C-alpha cells in the first residue's frame, strides 16, 4: 500500500509536467502573432515586433517554456488579456464556484447511483432491474446539455420551480444558492448515474450469486443480515473506482453545464478564454483543471484500495 502511494505520488509531477508542456505548446506555438492580435490590424510591423520583444515572445521555445513554468510555479499567472485583472484571483474565484457545483452534484450522485445499482442488482432479471438499467443506460448516453435543456423547459420555464440561470444574485441565502445549483447539478447527476449504477449492479449480482452469499444462505443467515454484512460492502467497493471515473467526467461536464446555465465557473472560463485567445487565462485554467483532474483520479484510487483488504494488505510482489 505504501509503495503504491509513493509510486502514484511520484507520478503526479511527471504527469503535470506533461500537461504543462501540452498546455504551453498549444497556447504558445499555435495562436500565431500575439502582438498583431493585441495591437490590431492597423499597428505598424515595428510596433508589433517591439511588443513581442518586450514580452519575450521572440525568445527560443525552451526559454519561453522555462520562464512561463517558473512564473506559473511562483504564482505569477499574469494578467488576463481581455478582463484586465490578475489571472490568479480570477481562477481562484472561478475554481471555488466550480467546486461548489461539482461537490453538490457528487453529493447527489453517490446515494442515487448506489441505491439504483443495489436495487437493480439484488432484483436481478426482474422488470425493475431492466427498467433501472435501461433508463440509466439511456441517460448516460445523452449529453448533459440536452438533459439540461429538457430540465430547464420543464422545471424552470413551465413549472417555475427553479430559476433559469444559475448565476448567483447578490443577497442569495444558502437555500437560494442550492436552488440555483440544483438543475445544473441534476443534469450532471443524470449523466453519471447510469455508469456508476451499472458497476454497482454488476458487482451486486456477482456478490449475490457468489459463493459466500450462498454459503451464508445455506447456514440460515437472515436476508437482512446478509445484505448488511456481505453484500453492501463487497458490492460498493468496486463502485469507488467507477465514481472516480465519473468525477473526471463531472469535471469535463462542467464546461458544458456552466455554459448552458450561465454559471461563472472554471469551465466557462476555459471556453471563454479559448474563444478570446486570452492566453494567460487559458493556460492557468487548463493547468488548474488538469491538476484537479489528477487529484480526483488519485483520490479515487486510494479510496478503492483502503476499502478492499485484499488490496490494502496485499504482499508487494
Amino acid at each position: 500500500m505504501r509503495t503504491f502511494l509513493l509510486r502514484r505520488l511520484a507520478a503526479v509531477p511527471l504527469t503535470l509536467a506533461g500537461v504543462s508542456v501540452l498546455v504551453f505548446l498549444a497556447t504558445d506555438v499555435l495562436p500565431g502573432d500575439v502582438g498583431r492580435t493585441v495591437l490590431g490590424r492597423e499597428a505598424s510591423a515595428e510596433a508589433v515586433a517591439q511588443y513581442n520583444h518586450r514580452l519575450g515572445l521572440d525568445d527560443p521555445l525552451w526559454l519561453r517554456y522555462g520562464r512561463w513554468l517558473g512564473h506559473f510555479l511562483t504564482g505569477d499567472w499574469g494578467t488576463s488579456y481581455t478582463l484586465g485583472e490578475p489571472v490568479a484571483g480570477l481562477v481562484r474565484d472561478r475554481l471555488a464556484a466550480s467546486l461548489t457545483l461539482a461537490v453538490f452534484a457528487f453529493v447527489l450522485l453517490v446515494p442515487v447511483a448506489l441505491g439504483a445499482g443495489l436495487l437493480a442488482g439484488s432484483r436481478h432479471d426482474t422488470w425493475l432491474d431492466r427498467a433501472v438499467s435501461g433508463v440509466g443506460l439511456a441517460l448516460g448516453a445523452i449529453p448533459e446539455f440536452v438533459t439540461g435543456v429538457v430540465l430547464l423547459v420543464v422545471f424552470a420555464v413551465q413549472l417555475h420551480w427553479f430559476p433559469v440561470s444559475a448565476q448567483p444574485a447578490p443577497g442569495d441565502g444558502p437555500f437560494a444558492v442550492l436552488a440555483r445549483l440544483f438543475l445544473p447539478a441534476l443534469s450532471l447527476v443524470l449523466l453519471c448515474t447510469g455508469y456508476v449504477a451499472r458497476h454497482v449492479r454488476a458487482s451486486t449480482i456477482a456478490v449475490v450469486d457468489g459463493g459466500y452469499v450462498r454459503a451464508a444462505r445455506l447456514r440460515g443467515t437472515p436476508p437482512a443480515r446478509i445484505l448488511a454484512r456481505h453484500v453492501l460492502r463487497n458490492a460498493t467497493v468496486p463502485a469507488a473506482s467507477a465514481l472516480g471515473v465519473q468525477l473526471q467526467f463531472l469535471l469535463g461536464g462542467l464546461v458544458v453545464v456552466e455554459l448552458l446555465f450561465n454559471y461563472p465557473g472554471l469551465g466557462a472560463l476555459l471556453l471563454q478564454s479559448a474563444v478570446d485567445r486570452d492566453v494567460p487565462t487559458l493556460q492557468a485554467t487548463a493547468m488548474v483543471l488538469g491538476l484537479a483532474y489528477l487529484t480526483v483520479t488519485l483520490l479515487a484510487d486510494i479510496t478503492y484500495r483502503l476499502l478492499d483488504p485484499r488490496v490494502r494488505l496485499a504482499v508487494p510482489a
Partner: protein
Amino acid sequence: MSAGLLVEALSAAYGPATVLREVSFAVAPGETFGLVGESGCGKTTLGYLLGGHLRPGGRHAGGRVTVDGVDVLALDAAALRRWRRGGIAFVHQDGAGALDPTMRIGAQVAEVLRLRGLGRRAAAAEAVGLLDRVGLPGGAARRYPHQLSGGQRQRVMIAAVLAARPRLLVLDEPTTGLDAATQAEVLDLLARLRAELSAAVVLISHDLELVGRHCDRVGVLYAGRLVESGPAAEVLADPAHPYTAGLLDSAPRRGVPRTVRRLAAIPGRPPLPGDPVAGCVFAARCPVADSACAPAEPAPADLPGGRAVACVHPRTAPRRRAETAVAVPAAVPVAEPLLEVHDLTRAYAGTAVLERVDLTIGRGEVVGLVGESGSGKTTLARAIAGLHPDGTGRLRFAGADLPARLARRDPDVRRRIQMVFQDPDTTLNPAQTVRRILERARRTLGGEPDVDTLAARTRLDGELLDRRPDRLSGGQRQRVAIARSFAGRPALVICDEPVSALDVSVQAAVLEVLAEQRERTGTSYLFISHDLAVVGYLADRIAVLYRGVLVEQGPAHAVLAGPHHPYTAALVGAGRPAPPALAPAAGCRFFAACFRRIEGLCDTTAPPDTQLGPRHTVRCHLDPAALPRTDSITSISITSTSNTSISSTSIGGVPA
C-alpha cells in the same frame, strides 16, 4: 422418526431438463456416504438440494429429503432458515469462494455461532477456540481469506462446520485442487470431525479411490440417476452396474503401468440434461446392452449385502484386470539422450520457480514429471519449449545447444519440439475449423500427407473435421491437439497435464491415443501430471518436482516402489503428513513437511543427490537404507502379473 438422512425418489429439473430422477438413499448418523459421478451427472445439484437449495432456474420435481425426521423440502422459507442453522453444513471445493473476502475469518466463524444464539463476545472467543482446534492458532482469526492458503481456507470452513454442529454434513469435492499432502491433512481433519459430530456425512467426489478410502457406502450417479449403491469396498471391488465397471476400468491406478493393465474408455459421452432417453440411460454406451434394455428405465433392484443396482443385466460387464504379464524390469536400457537440461533456473518476480534442475530425456523415452500445483512443472515445460526463456541454465537437443528463446531456435529444431496443453477449452483456435487447424499445422510443420490421415491416427471421426472447437467435447479437443502436435515429425512432445481437465471415462481414450502415437513414431514425451497414477501409466522414467527442485528421478517402477524420497512417499500415499514447521531459508525445501526430517541438518544444508540405482537419484540427506519404501506399489505389480489376463481381442480398439 428416523435418525440421519433419508432421500426418497428425489427429482429436480432445470426448465424441461431433468437433472435428478428419483434418487433414493439413506445415511445413518455417523456414517459417510460417497456420491461418485462425472461432471454434469447432477451430484452438485443433489448436494445443494439436501439443504433445500436450488440454483436459479432449478425446480424440485418430486420426492422427499428427510433429516432426523424433518421434511426439509416442505419447510417454508423462515423455517428452512431456522433449520439450516443446526441442521446442515457444507464444505465446498473452493474455500475461497465460500468466504467473504472483506471479513476476517474469525468474524466469519463467529457469525455462525451468533446465528445459534451466542452473544457477540462469546461468539468471538469461541471462534478463536474453534480455529485453534482445526490448526489455525492464535492470531489467525484476525486474518483475511486472501492471506491463507487453499488448505487453510478449507480448515476455516471446517471450523465453521464445528461451530454449526449440524446433523447432516455435505462435502462437495472438499479436497479437489489441493496438493497431495494438504489433501491428506484436510481429509484427516474431516475424519475427526465426523467422529465428533456423529452427523450423517455425504461426500461428493469424482475420485473413486478417495471415495473408496473414506466412505462406508457409495452411490454412483449417472445422468441424474443413482445407478448403483452399496458398501464402498464391495461396490468398488465387484461392481454390478456396467457404468461402475467402466469407470473403474478407465481409471489408472497408482503404480500400475500400461504394460500391466490397459485402460478402457467408456465409448461416447453422457447424455446432456434434457436429451430424450428411451429405456436405460446408459444403454447407448453399454457393452452388454441389448433389446431388453430399450423398453423401460430399469428400477433400482436390491442385491444381497445391502446393495442395489438399476440394470437389466447386472454383473455381466466384462472386466479388464490385467493384460500383459510383466516382470519388474531388471535394468532400464539407457537411451541416447535427446534433450538435456542442465542447471536450469527460472524465477517469477524474484521468487525462484525452478532451481538448478537437471533432467535428461532419452530418444523414444517417456519421462513423467509429477509435482503439486505451483511446483514449477509448467514452467519447466515452457522453458524447454522456449516459451519461458528468461533465466539461467543450458539446454541441449539432439547433441546441439538449444537456445532458450524460441525466436533464436533454428526453425527445423523448433518444429521438432511440440506441446499438448492442459485446458481443452483454449488449446484450439476457436475461430477455425478442425480441418483448418490441422491443415495449418501440417503446412507450417511440413509433415503428414493429409489431414484425414492425421485425424484417423488420433481416432477423430471425419465428420468432426468441419466443426469448430466449441462443437467438440473436451476429449475430442485434446485429440485434435495431439493430432496438431504430430502434424510434422516431432522428436519431443511435451504433454502438460493433457488429461487433468477431463472426466475419467474420457481421459483413458486420450491416454491411449498418446500411447499409440508414441509406439508408431518413437517420439519422446515429457508427460506432466499432478496425478501419480496417470504418470505411472505411460512413463518409462519418473521425475518428481517439489517447489522447483527435482527431488528424485529414476525408472518409473523404482521411483514408485522405493526406496524413494520422503516427498515421493507422501505422494504415493505412504507418508504421513508431518506437523508443519517453519520453512528454513537454507537446506531442503521439503523440510517443513517431511516426516523423516533431521533437525539441525535438513534445515541448514541443501541435500546432495544420492545415486540409488541405475539412473535413479534422490536429493535427500537420509541414508539410502533409511529411505522409505512403498510396499503396496510392489505388491500391486506382483499381484497383477499373477492375474489371469483377459484375451486381447476383447479389449479391441479405443472408441473414437
